[in-house]
Protein backbone atom coordinates (compact mmCIF):
# COMPACT_ATOMS: atom_id res chain seq x y z
CA UNK A 1 0.00 0.00 0.00
CA UNK A 2 1.33 3.36 -0.99
CA UNK A 3 1.82 5.86 1.76
CA UNK A 4 1.08 9.52 1.17
CA UNK A 5 4.15 11.50 2.04
CA UNK A 6 2.54 14.87 1.52
CA UNK A 7 -0.93 16.21 1.44
CA UNK A 8 -1.97 16.95 -2.14
CA UNK A 9 -2.35 20.66 -1.28
CA UNK A 10 1.22 20.79 -0.06
CA UNK A 11 2.31 19.09 -3.27
CA UNK A 12 0.52 21.68 -5.37
CA UNK A 13 1.98 24.51 -3.30
CA UNK A 14 5.44 23.04 -3.80
CA UNK A 15 4.75 22.68 -7.50
CA UNK A 16 3.71 26.33 -7.76
CA UNK A 17 6.76 27.35 -5.79
CA UNK A 18 8.96 25.43 -8.21
CA UNK A 19 7.12 26.97 -11.16
CA UNK A 20 7.66 30.45 -9.70
CA UNK A 21 11.36 29.84 -9.15
CA UNK A 22 11.62 28.42 -12.66
CA UNK A 23 9.89 31.49 -14.11
CA UNK A 24 12.18 33.80 -12.15
CA UNK A 25 15.18 31.90 -13.46
CA UNK A 26 13.95 31.88 -17.06
CA UNK A 27 13.18 35.59 -16.82
CA UNK A 28 16.59 36.42 -15.39
CA UNK A 29 18.44 34.59 -18.18
CA UNK A 30 16.20 36.19 -20.79
CA UNK A 31 14.52 33.06 -22.12
CA UNK A 32 11.11 34.40 -21.17
CA UNK A 33 11.64 37.66 -23.02
CA UNK A 34 10.08 36.48 -26.34
CA UNK A 35 7.03 35.23 -24.46
CA UNK A 36 6.70 38.51 -22.56
CA UNK A 37 7.10 40.46 -25.80
CA UNK A 38 4.50 38.28 -27.50
CA UNK A 39 2.00 38.85 -24.68
CA UNK A 40 2.65 42.55 -24.82
CA UNK A 41 2.40 42.61 -28.62
CA UNK A 42 -0.90 40.73 -28.66
CA UNK A 43 -2.47 42.82 -25.91
CA UNK A 44 -1.20 46.17 -27.19
CA UNK A 45 -4.10 46.99 -29.56
CA UNK A 46 -6.65 46.15 -26.88
CA UNK A 47 -4.74 48.20 -24.34
CA UNK A 48 -4.71 51.18 -26.70
CA UNK A 49 -8.47 50.98 -27.08
CA UNK A 50 -8.94 50.54 -23.34
CA UNK A 51 -6.62 53.42 -22.48
CA UNK A 52 -8.39 55.70 -24.95
CA UNK A 53 -11.72 54.66 -23.49
CA UNK A 54 -10.38 55.48 -20.03
CA UNK A 55 -9.18 58.84 -21.25
CA UNK A 56 -12.60 59.59 -22.68
CA UNK A 57 -14.26 58.43 -19.49
CA UNK A 58 -12.01 60.21 -17.01
CA UNK A 59 -10.79 63.19 -19.02
CA UNK A 60 -13.08 63.76 -21.94
CA UNK A 61 -12.16 67.44 -22.12
CA UNK A 62 -8.61 66.53 -23.11
CA UNK A 63 -9.58 64.43 -26.12
CA UNK A 64 -9.07 65.78 -29.57
CA UNK A 65 -10.38 64.34 -32.77
CA UNK A 66 -8.40 61.58 -34.46
CA UNK A 67 -7.75 63.81 -37.44
CA UNK A 68 -6.36 66.52 -35.27
CA UNK A 69 -4.18 64.06 -33.38
CA UNK A 70 -2.82 62.67 -36.63
CA UNK A 71 -1.99 66.12 -37.88
CA UNK A 72 -0.37 66.96 -34.55
CA UNK A 73 1.77 63.86 -34.76
CA UNK A 74 3.01 64.65 -38.22
CA UNK A 75 3.86 68.19 -37.34
CA UNK A 76 5.16 67.54 -33.87
CA UNK A 77 8.75 68.26 -34.68
CA UNK A 78 7.91 71.65 -36.17
CA UNK A 79 5.54 72.41 -33.34
CA UNK A 80 8.16 71.66 -30.75
CA UNK A 81 10.76 73.83 -32.35
CA UNK A 82 8.30 76.64 -32.93
CA UNK A 83 6.97 76.46 -29.40
CA UNK A 84 10.41 76.53 -27.90
CA UNK A 85 11.40 79.42 -30.08
CA UNK A 86 8.21 81.18 -29.11
CA UNK A 87 8.91 80.57 -25.46
CA UNK A 88 12.36 81.90 -25.78
CA UNK A 89 11.12 84.87 -27.83
CA UNK A 90 8.56 85.76 -25.18
CA UNK A 91 11.19 85.44 -22.57
CA UNK A 92 13.60 87.61 -24.48
CA UNK A 93 10.89 90.24 -24.78
CA UNK A 94 10.69 90.25 -21.01
CA UNK A 95 14.37 90.23 -20.22
CA UNK A 96 16.01 91.64 -23.37
CA UNK A 97 18.80 89.23 -22.63
CA UNK A 98 21.39 88.54 -25.26
CA UNK A 99 21.93 85.11 -23.77
CA UNK A 100 18.37 84.19 -24.58
CA UNK A 101 18.76 85.47 -28.09
CA UNK A 102 21.57 82.96 -28.38
CA UNK A 103 19.21 80.34 -27.05
CA UNK A 104 16.79 81.17 -29.84
CA UNK A 105 19.56 80.73 -32.33
CA UNK A 106 20.49 77.47 -30.69
CA UNK A 107 16.92 76.19 -30.87
CA UNK A 108 16.54 77.30 -34.47
CA UNK A 109 19.57 75.39 -35.52
CA UNK A 110 18.70 72.22 -33.59
CA UNK A 111 16.58 69.60 -35.29
CA UNK A 112 15.44 67.00 -32.83
CA UNK A 113 14.66 63.51 -34.02
CA UNK A 114 11.43 62.19 -32.52
CA UNK A 115 9.54 58.98 -32.08
CA UNK A 116 5.83 59.43 -31.45
CA UNK A 117 4.36 57.02 -28.94
CA UNK A 118 1.04 56.34 -27.33
CA UNK A 119 0.53 55.72 -23.66
CA UNK A 120 -1.29 52.42 -23.27
CA UNK A 121 -1.26 51.86 -19.55
CA UNK A 122 0.41 52.35 -16.25
CA UNK A 123 2.66 49.98 -14.37
CA UNK A 124 0.79 48.35 -11.50
CA UNK A 125 2.70 50.17 -8.77
CA UNK A 126 0.62 52.61 -6.76
CA UNK A 127 3.64 54.60 -5.59
CA UNK A 128 4.90 55.52 -9.01
CA UNK A 129 3.92 57.51 -12.05
CA UNK A 130 5.28 54.94 -14.49
CA UNK A 131 3.43 54.88 -17.79
CA UNK A 132 3.74 52.20 -20.44
CA UNK A 133 4.46 53.41 -23.96
CA UNK A 134 3.87 51.39 -27.11
CA UNK A 135 7.37 51.98 -28.46
CA UNK A 136 10.53 50.15 -27.47
CA UNK A 137 14.12 49.50 -28.42
CA UNK A 138 12.99 48.32 -31.87
CA UNK A 139 11.92 51.92 -32.50
CA UNK A 140 15.18 53.41 -31.25
CA UNK A 141 14.02 54.10 -27.72
CA UNK A 142 16.60 53.92 -24.95
CA UNK A 143 16.73 54.56 -21.23
CA UNK A 144 17.21 58.21 -20.30
CA UNK A 145 15.55 59.73 -23.35
CA UNK A 146 13.22 62.65 -22.64
CA UNK A 147 9.52 62.45 -23.36
CA UNK A 148 7.79 65.60 -24.53
CA UNK A 149 4.19 66.51 -25.09
CA UNK A 150 2.72 68.60 -27.86
CA UNK A 151 4.55 71.89 -27.88
CA UNK A 152 7.85 70.86 -26.39
CA UNK A 153 6.66 70.35 -22.85
CA UNK A 154 8.88 67.97 -20.93
CA UNK A 155 6.64 65.38 -19.28
CA UNK A 156 9.00 62.57 -18.37
CA UNK A 157 11.86 60.33 -19.30
CA UNK A 158 12.34 56.71 -20.26
CA UNK A 159 13.44 54.51 -17.37
CA UNK A 160 13.02 51.06 -18.90
CA UNK A 161 12.89 49.90 -22.50
CA UNK A 162 12.04 46.51 -23.96
CA UNK A 163 11.75 45.53 -27.60
CA UNK A 164 8.15 46.62 -28.08
CA UNK A 165 7.42 48.78 -25.08
CA UNK A 166 9.01 51.16 -22.67
CA UNK A 167 8.29 52.74 -19.31
CA UNK A 168 8.17 56.49 -18.92
CA UNK A 169 8.42 58.11 -15.51
CA UNK A 170 6.53 61.36 -15.18
CA UNK A 171 8.43 64.40 -13.94
CA UNK A 172 6.00 64.60 -11.03
CA UNK A 173 7.15 61.21 -9.71
CA UNK A 174 9.24 61.32 -6.54
CA UNK A 175 12.05 59.56 -8.38
CA UNK A 176 12.32 62.27 -11.00
CA UNK A 177 14.81 65.10 -10.76
CA UNK A 178 15.77 67.34 -13.65
CA UNK A 179 18.33 70.09 -13.89
CA UNK A 180 16.49 73.29 -14.73
CA UNK A 181 16.65 77.05 -14.68
CA UNK A 182 14.15 79.84 -14.37
CA UNK A 183 13.97 82.03 -17.44
CA UNK A 184 14.83 85.32 -15.79
CA UNK A 185 17.65 87.80 -16.17
CA UNK A 186 20.13 85.52 -14.42
CA UNK A 187 18.77 82.14 -15.47
CA UNK A 188 18.40 81.05 -11.86
CA UNK A 189 19.48 77.41 -11.65
CA UNK A 190 17.91 74.64 -9.61
CA UNK A 191 16.64 71.10 -9.71
CA UNK A 192 13.01 70.27 -10.44
CA UNK A 193 11.85 67.27 -8.46
CA UNK A 194 8.54 65.45 -8.43
CA UNK A 195 6.44 65.38 -5.28
CA UNK A 196 4.68 62.02 -4.89
CA UNK A 197 3.23 62.21 -8.37
CA UNK A 198 1.15 65.19 -7.37
CA UNK A 199 3.21 68.30 -8.04
CA UNK A 200 6.58 69.76 -9.01
CA UNK A 201 9.04 71.63 -6.88
CA UNK A 202 12.18 73.45 -7.90
CA UNK A 203 14.83 73.08 -5.24
CA UNK A 204 18.41 74.24 -4.69
CA UNK A 205 17.82 77.73 -6.05
CA UNK A 206 20.47 79.98 -4.46
CA UNK A 207 19.11 82.60 -2.08
CA UNK A 208 20.85 85.30 -4.09
CA UNK A 209 18.64 84.60 -7.10
CA UNK A 210 15.55 86.69 -7.57
CA UNK A 211 12.68 84.67 -8.99
CA UNK A 212 9.10 85.71 -9.54
CA UNK A 213 5.83 83.87 -10.00
CA UNK A 214 4.75 83.09 -13.58
CA UNK A 215 8.33 82.88 -14.79
CA UNK A 216 8.95 79.90 -17.04
CA UNK A 217 11.14 77.00 -15.95
CA UNK A 218 13.00 75.05 -18.63
CA UNK A 219 15.43 72.16 -18.63
CA UNK A 220 19.04 73.16 -18.24
CA UNK A 221 20.53 70.40 -20.37
CA UNK A 222 22.75 69.08 -17.59
CA UNK A 223 21.52 65.52 -18.10
CA UNK A 224 23.09 63.60 -20.92
CA UNK A 225 19.96 63.07 -23.02
CA UNK A 226 17.75 65.97 -22.04
CA UNK A 227 18.36 69.02 -24.20
CA UNK A 228 18.27 72.52 -22.86
CA UNK A 229 15.15 74.62 -23.20
CA UNK A 230 12.35 72.08 -22.84
CA UNK A 231 9.48 73.68 -20.97
CA UNK A 232 8.78 72.21 -17.54
CA UNK A 233 6.30 74.70 -16.13
CA UNK A 234 5.71 78.05 -14.52
CA UNK A 235 6.65 79.24 -11.06
CA UNK A 236 3.45 79.32 -9.03
CA UNK A 237 4.80 80.13 -5.57
CA UNK A 238 8.16 80.76 -3.92
CA UNK A 239 9.49 79.86 -0.51
CA UNK A 240 12.61 81.85 0.41
CA UNK A 241 13.04 81.67 4.13
CA UNK A 242 16.21 83.46 5.14
CA UNK A 243 17.46 80.69 7.44
CA UNK A 244 17.55 78.25 4.54
CA UNK A 245 20.51 77.96 2.20
CA UNK A 246 18.34 77.65 -0.87
CA UNK A 247 14.98 78.81 -2.11
CA UNK A 248 12.32 76.44 -3.33
CA UNK A 249 9.55 77.16 -5.79
CA UNK A 250 6.39 75.31 -6.66
CA UNK A 251 6.12 74.68 -10.37
CA UNK A 252 2.85 74.42 -12.23
CA UNK A 253 3.10 72.16 -15.30
CA UNK A 254 1.34 73.56 -18.38
CA UNK A 255 -0.62 70.33 -18.94
CA UNK A 256 -2.36 67.76 -16.76
CA UNK A 257 0.35 65.15 -16.73
CA UNK A 258 -1.79 62.14 -15.88
CA UNK A 259 -4.14 62.76 -18.81
CA UNK A 260 -1.73 62.37 -21.69
CA UNK A 261 -2.29 60.25 -24.75
CA UNK A 262 0.21 60.90 -27.52
CA UNK A 263 3.74 61.87 -26.55
CA UNK A 264 7.05 62.11 -28.36
CA UNK A 265 10.40 60.75 -27.36
CA UNK A 266 13.43 62.79 -28.35
CA UNK A 267 15.82 60.28 -29.82
CA UNK A 268 18.58 62.72 -30.79
Amino acid at each position, binding site marked *: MKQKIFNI*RINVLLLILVATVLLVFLHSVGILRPV*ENAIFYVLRPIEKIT*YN*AGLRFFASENIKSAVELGRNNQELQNQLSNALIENARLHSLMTKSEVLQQEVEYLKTNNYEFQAAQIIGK*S*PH*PGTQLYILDRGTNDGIAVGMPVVYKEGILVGKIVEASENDS*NMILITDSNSSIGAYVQNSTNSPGVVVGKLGLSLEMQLIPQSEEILTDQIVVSSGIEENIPEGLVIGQVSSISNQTEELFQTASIQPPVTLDRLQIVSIIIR
Partner: protein
Amino acid sequence: MSKNISIAIVIFAVLIIQISFIEPFVVGIAPISVVVLFLTLLAFRLELIPLLWWSFLIGALHEVYSIMPFGTFIVITIITSIVLYYLLKNLLTNKSLLPFVLMAITGSIIYNLLFFAASVLFYYTNSLTITIYQIPHLWSGILVQAGVNGISALILFLLLRTLTKRFQNQFLVRK
Protein backbone atom coordinates in the same frame (compact mmCIF):
# COMPACT_ATOMS: atom_id res chain seq x y z
CA MET B 1 -11.97 23.04 -20.97
CA SER B 2 -14.27 25.87 -22.07
CA LYS B 3 -14.53 26.95 -18.44
CA ASN B 4 -10.75 27.25 -18.23
CA ILE B 5 -10.62 29.23 -21.46
CA SER B 6 -13.34 31.52 -20.16
CA ILE B 7 -11.45 32.15 -16.93
CA ALA B 8 -8.23 32.81 -18.86
CA ILE B 9 -9.98 35.35 -21.11
CA VAL B 10 -11.52 37.06 -18.10
CA ILE B 11 -8.09 37.21 -16.44
CA PHE B 12 -6.65 39.00 -19.48
CA ALA B 13 -9.62 41.36 -19.55
CA VAL B 14 -9.30 42.12 -15.85
CA LEU B 15 -5.60 42.81 -16.21
CA ILE B 16 -6.14 45.16 -19.15
CA ILE B 17 -8.93 47.00 -17.38
CA GLN B 18 -6.74 47.51 -14.32
CA ILE B 19 -3.60 48.57 -16.18
CA SER B 20 -5.05 50.56 -19.07
CA PHE B 21 -8.39 51.82 -17.80
CA ILE B 22 -8.14 52.43 -14.07
CA GLU B 23 -4.49 52.86 -13.01
CA PRO B 24 -3.39 55.53 -15.54
CA PHE B 25 -5.86 58.08 -14.26
CA VAL B 26 -5.15 57.92 -10.56
CA VAL B 27 -2.26 59.02 -8.41
CA GLY B 28 -1.54 56.59 -5.59
CA ILE B 29 -3.78 53.65 -4.89
CA ALA B 30 -6.55 53.09 -7.41
CA PRO B 31 -10.05 53.48 -5.95
CA ILE B 32 -10.96 50.03 -7.22
CA SER B 33 -8.97 46.86 -7.84
CA VAL B 34 -10.73 44.60 -10.30
CA VAL B 35 -7.87 42.12 -9.91
CA VAL B 36 -8.65 41.67 -6.22
CA LEU B 37 -12.34 41.55 -6.99
CA PHE B 38 -11.74 38.75 -9.46
CA LEU B 39 -9.48 36.92 -7.01
CA THR B 40 -12.31 37.12 -4.48
CA LEU B 41 -14.69 35.66 -6.99
CA LEU B 42 -12.28 32.84 -7.77
CA ALA B 43 -11.73 32.12 -4.06
CA PHE B 44 -15.49 32.08 -3.65
CA ARG B 45 -16.09 29.70 -6.52
CA LEU B 46 -13.07 27.41 -6.77
CA GLU B 47 -11.29 24.90 -4.62
CA LEU B 48 -7.81 25.68 -3.38
CA ILE B 49 -5.77 23.95 -6.05
CA PRO B 50 -7.34 25.51 -9.16
CA LEU B 51 -7.47 28.81 -7.27
CA LEU B 52 -3.73 28.67 -6.73
CA TRP B 53 -3.03 27.95 -10.38
CA TRP B 54 -5.23 30.79 -11.58
CA SER B 55 -3.65 33.12 -9.04
CA PHE B 56 -0.28 32.07 -10.35
CA LEU B 57 -1.35 33.02 -13.89
CA ILE B 58 -2.73 36.39 -12.75
CA GLY B 59 0.53 37.15 -10.92
CA ALA B 60 2.67 35.99 -13.84
CA LEU B 61 0.80 38.25 -16.26
CA HIS B 62 1.23 41.17 -13.88
CA GLU B 63 4.98 40.58 -13.99
CA VAL B 64 5.06 41.56 -17.67
CA TYR B 65 4.13 45.11 -16.69
CA SER B 66 6.01 45.29 -13.42
CA ILE B 67 9.35 46.85 -12.64
CA MET B 68 9.62 44.98 -9.36
CA PRO B 69 11.81 41.86 -9.20
CA PHE B 70 10.21 39.06 -11.17
CA GLY B 71 8.03 36.87 -8.99
CA THR B 72 6.86 39.57 -6.61
CA PHE B 73 3.36 39.81 -8.02
CA ILE B 74 3.05 36.04 -8.25
CA VAL B 75 3.80 35.74 -4.55
CA ILE B 76 1.51 38.63 -3.59
CA THR B 77 -1.38 37.24 -5.63
CA ILE B 78 -0.99 33.70 -4.33
CA ILE B 79 -0.75 34.78 -0.70
CA THR B 80 -3.86 36.95 -1.11
CA SER B 81 -5.72 34.01 -2.63
CA ILE B 82 -4.69 31.64 0.15
CA VAL B 83 -5.77 34.11 2.81
CA LEU B 84 -9.12 34.64 1.07
CA TYR B 85 -9.67 30.93 0.69
CA TYR B 86 -8.97 30.12 4.32
CA LEU B 87 -10.97 33.11 5.44
CA LEU B 88 -13.95 31.70 3.59
CA LYS B 89 -13.42 28.15 4.79
CA ASN B 90 -12.68 28.85 8.44
CA LEU B 91 -14.26 32.14 9.43
CA LEU B 92 -16.97 33.16 7.04
CA THR B 93 -17.98 29.57 6.25
CA ASN B 94 -20.94 30.18 3.98
CA LYS B 95 -21.16 31.54 0.46
CA SER B 96 -23.63 34.33 0.95
CA LEU B 97 -23.53 38.05 0.35
CA LEU B 98 -21.81 39.18 3.52
CA PRO B 99 -18.81 36.80 3.26
CA PHE B 100 -18.36 37.82 -0.37
CA VAL B 101 -18.29 41.53 0.48
CA LEU B 102 -16.03 40.96 3.48
CA MET B 103 -13.66 38.89 1.37
CA ALA B 104 -13.45 41.65 -1.23
CA ILE B 105 -12.65 44.21 1.47
CA THR B 106 -10.10 41.97 3.19
CA GLY B 107 -8.52 40.95 -0.08
CA SER B 108 -8.06 44.57 -1.06
CA ILE B 109 -6.38 45.43 2.24
CA ILE B 110 -4.12 42.35 2.19
CA TYR B 111 -3.10 42.84 -1.44
CA ASN B 112 -2.11 46.47 -0.87
CA LEU B 113 -0.32 45.78 2.39
CA LEU B 114 1.67 42.98 0.78
CA PHE B 115 2.58 45.27 -2.08
CA PHE B 116 3.62 48.00 0.32
CA ALA B 117 5.68 45.54 2.38
CA ALA B 118 7.41 44.29 -0.77
CA SER B 119 8.12 47.87 -1.87
CA VAL B 120 9.70 48.74 1.48
CA LEU B 121 11.70 45.50 1.45
CA PHE B 122 13.06 46.19 -2.03
CA TYR B 123 13.83 49.77 -1.09
CA TYR B 124 15.94 48.73 1.89
CA THR B 125 17.67 45.96 -0.04
CA ASN B 126 18.37 48.31 -2.96
CA SER B 127 16.70 45.93 -5.37
CA LEU B 128 15.10 48.68 -7.41
CA THR B 129 16.44 51.70 -9.22
CA ILE B 130 13.16 53.46 -8.55
CA THR B 131 11.69 54.07 -5.13
CA ILE B 132 8.11 52.91 -5.09
CA TYR B 133 7.22 52.80 -1.43
CA GLN B 134 6.34 56.47 -1.13
CA ILE B 135 2.68 56.06 -1.93
CA PRO B 136 0.65 59.25 -1.59
CA HIS B 137 -2.33 58.92 0.74
CA LEU B 138 -1.42 55.28 1.38
CA TRP B 139 -3.71 54.47 4.31
CA SER B 140 -6.68 56.50 3.16
CA GLY B 141 -6.14 55.04 -0.34
CA ILE B 142 -6.27 51.49 1.03
CA LEU B 143 -9.44 52.28 2.97
CA VAL B 144 -11.09 53.89 -0.05
CA GLN B 145 -10.19 50.93 -2.26
CA ALA B 146 -11.45 48.49 0.35
CA GLY B 147 -14.73 50.38 0.58
CA VAL B 148 -15.20 50.69 -3.18
CA ASN B 149 -14.26 47.04 -3.64
CA GLY B 150 -16.84 46.11 -1.02
CA ILE B 151 -19.55 48.06 -2.81
CA SER B 152 -18.44 46.61 -6.14
CA ALA B 153 -18.58 43.13 -4.63
CA LEU B 154 -22.13 43.82 -3.54
CA ILE B 155 -23.10 44.89 -7.06
CA LEU B 156 -21.24 41.96 -8.61
CA PHE B 157 -22.94 39.55 -6.25
CA LEU B 158 -26.40 40.82 -7.08
CA LEU B 159 -25.57 40.90 -10.77
CA LEU B 160 -24.27 37.34 -10.82
CA ARG B 161 -27.19 36.15 -8.78
CA THR B 162 -29.54 37.68 -11.30
CA LEU B 163 -27.70 36.49 -14.39
CA THR B 164 -26.24 33.14 -13.43
CA LYS B 165 -28.40 30.27 -12.34
CA ARG B 166 -25.38 28.28 -11.30
CA PHE B 167 -24.50 30.94 -8.79
CA GLN B 168 -27.81 31.07 -7.03
CA ASN B 169 -27.55 27.74 -5.26
CA GLN B 170 -24.45 28.93 -3.49
CA PHE B 171 -26.18 31.64 -1.54
CA LEU B 172 -28.23 31.30 1.56
CA VAL B 173 -31.88 31.80 0.81
CA ARG B 174 -34.42 32.64 3.48
CA LYS B 175 -37.19 30.06 3.54
